[in-house]
């Protein structure tokens, strides 16, 4: 009947325990200390944008605060925690900055950000639905992507638009780290999605230049699709005939997120339901709307398509 000493309630202790306990308690405390509290919780303010006109459609739902919009971000180049972008994105260099538009078009070109900031800007208050089942209401300032694409004159072979976002390895702690997704982050749209009047290139929010953690100096906003479709800090837009490879649709064998990624409460993610979402600032979940509530404007783009297959 062998019972190990480890199984017996010990009757004695050693003197060294005091030291160990103190060190152990301090170590455990440090481990459990939430990193979020260490981050400065101050909303960054960019340069004021001139001549922004109210645009339609805009929701009149309660807008999320700049504090919320700048401290709850997915921008994996700066880390995978929601508060990582707020802590690290200040290192992003946003000047000089150009956006190259190339591929199947008559007049490819490279546009300087200061040139793009002179496009007629409008405010669009859009719902943003993240694939992770949370949402916000954000007042974007920008212009329809179509305005830029019309300038380069897409050819008839331009069936898709590929987006490439910036990589500044030395400024981005999330690039090349353990388990990191491949960068640059690639996204894509069908040409009719890209030319849709709802699809914006945003250069600001709340009347100010975009905060860096939200994709400064210029980003895509496609409000009826999950947020990851809306690439941040764009450097290249390419018109092409074939469907472009995108970062998430290639990741993990394409099971994670699809190319279309239209907000759809009926099609669940493998790990969670998409039927409901938590609006940041609210305690309980609310039902998710098909096409994020923009179905009247965009459902016709997908007439006859099986949205379960093309998720």
């Amino acid at each position, binding site marked *: 009947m062998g019972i190990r000493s480890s199984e017996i309630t*010990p009757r004695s202790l*050693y003197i060294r325990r005091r030291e160990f306990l103190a060190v152990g308690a301090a170590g455990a405390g440090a481990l459990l200390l939430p990193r979020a509290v260490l981050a400065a919780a101050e909303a960054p303010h960019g340069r004021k944008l001139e001549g922004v006109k109210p645009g339609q459609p805009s929701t009149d739902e309660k807008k999320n605060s700049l504090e919320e919009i700048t*401290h709850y971000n997915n921008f994996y180049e700066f880390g*995978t925690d929601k508060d990582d972008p707020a802590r690290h994105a200040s290192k992003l260099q946003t000047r000089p900055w150009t956006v190259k538009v190339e591929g199947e078009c008559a007049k490819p070109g490279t546009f300087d950000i200061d040139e793009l900031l002179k496009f007629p800007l409008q405010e669009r208050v859009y719902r943003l639905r993240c694939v992770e089942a949370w949402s916000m209401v954000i007042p974007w300032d920008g212009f329809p992507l179509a305005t830029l694409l019309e300038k380069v004159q897409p050819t008839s072979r331009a069936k898709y638009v590929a987006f490439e976002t910036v990589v500044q390895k030395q400024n981005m702690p999330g690039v090349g780290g353990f388990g990191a997704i491949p960068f640059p982050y690639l996204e894509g749209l069908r040409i009719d999605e890209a030319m849709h009047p709802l699809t914006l290139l945003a250069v600001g929010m709340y009347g100010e230049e975009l905060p860096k953690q939200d994709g400064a100096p210029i980003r895509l906003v496609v409000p009826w699709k999950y947020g990851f479709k809306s690439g941040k800090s764009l450097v290249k837009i390419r018109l092409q005939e074939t469907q472009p490879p995108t970062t998430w649709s290639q990741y993990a064998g394409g099971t994670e997120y699809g190319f279309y990624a239209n907000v759809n409460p009926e099609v669940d993610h493998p*790990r969670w339901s998409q039927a409901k979402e938590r609006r940041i600032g609210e305690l309980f979940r609310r039902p998710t709307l098909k096409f994020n509530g923009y179905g009247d404007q965009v459902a016709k783009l997908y007439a006859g398509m099986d949205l379960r297959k093309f998720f």
Partner: protein
Amino acid sequence: MEKAARQPWLKPLVFAPALSPLLWLASRGLRGTLGPDPVAEVLNRLGLYAICLLFCSLACTPLQLVLGWKWPLRVRRMLGLFAFFYACLHLSTYLFVDQGLDFGGIAKDISKRRFVTVGFAAWCSLVPLAITSTQAWVRRLGYRRWKALHRLVYLAGALACVHFIWRFKTALLQPVLFTAVLALLLGIRLAARARPAARRVSVPSESR
């Protein structure tokens, strides 16, 4: 050597740090510093604390085996119960707040999503351990059966690690490190079992 009864400070000294993360979380809640999504923050923190405490309880025996310390065994039950306490708070946050007691959604979540299934299974495997954590239950079951039952803790640890890894869409260092620590703790026990019996202290089971 001192008598066990002479360490009245040992349990309070472990109890306080084990409880402190909850107090810290509560104080952040009261001060409104839980960030833009407080529900997710509380849910994730409670889950992390549960795994940390579970691992602390799992480390007690290996500490005794490797370093000869016996005091961890005196706080093992308390650490295990704290792990269960945090796991219950984690699960309650999910049920009551995150899901708002939408039973249809919860049932679907647990049955359909492997990440949730595994987390729920981890909690379920802790339940019998918490119930039978008293001396009375050791006597009722008999020590050998009680001990066999409590090996479930390693299953709970493994399920918790899988739950933690599957939570993320990319491979993350933290859950992988937790899994490595679990493997190390289990490895130490297995290595100790493999050692010749002569190195063990042999005590007749009746003595318990």
